[in-house]
């Protein structure tokens, strides 16, 4: 299936819902959305990946690119993911040490608030 993107603000944190496949074809759309959000001064991001069916290194690159952008503004980009097949890719690449990975959106938001 294709990639579906949505986003909403909750408690001052922008939550990005991602559904479908993030690969070399679809990843540019996610990159554009993240860039757009940062350009609109959203530096606290949570990317909800619970409905992501496929993620490759191109998608990882986009997420890391987003992380670098928000960090440049002292922000952060956390992930919501409990799917083992997606988490495995983060483990293989060592990116579990780079991203905050949470089980639910509420948990991710609570973690961000406690950091402030």
């Amino acid at each position: 299936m294709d990639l579906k993107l949505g986003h909403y603000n909750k408690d001052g944190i922008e939550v990005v819902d991602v559904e479908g496949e993030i690969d070399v074809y679809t990843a540019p759309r996610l990159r554009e959305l993240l860039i757009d959000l940062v350009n609109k001064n959203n530096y606290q991001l949570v990317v909800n990946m619970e409905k992501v069916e496929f993620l490759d290194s191109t998608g990882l690159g986009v997420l890391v690119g987003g992380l670098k952008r928000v960090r440049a503004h002292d922000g952060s980009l956390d992930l919501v993911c409990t799917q083992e097949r997606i988490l495995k890719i983060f483990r293989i690449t060592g990116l579990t040490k780079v991203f905050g990975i949470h089980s639910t959106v509420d948990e991710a938001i609570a973690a961000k608030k406690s950091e402030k």
Partner: protein
Amino acid sequence: MATVEVTFTPLPAHVRTARLVATAVARRSGVDEALLDEVRLAVGEACSRAVEAHRRHCPAEPVKIEMTDQGERFVVVVSDQAPTNPARTAGTNGHGISPGEPAATTALVQGADDAGIPAGFGLAVISGLADDVRVSSTSSGVSVRMSWPSATPTA
């Protein structure tokens, strides 16, 4: 002769098709269901790398995938026809990025930008997924050969 051979125009949109075909042939060849996600991801990474190489060097040439059921192994070979550049194969021979190591993370975090991720990272992911990966470079291009255990279905 390969069990199934696919060639496709080097466009990102076709990589998904390649993944789907590879997964279907792997399933038919008796690759364990638990390994199909790895086949799908590894073949996708290999095809993404090849597509990127072709778009830079030879956009009119197709990318080729050969899938062969060899009885005990399911073998996938993804071949490009782009001129060999050592940077493109970094990470495949122990001298570049290795999966799961801090260097891989550091390289990605430092290198990722709007242009994407460092060369070789996709191959690092592949080597973290397939237990048998061989990358060969010739003057006519790069081949990524991957294999997984299989068993011919009884039905």
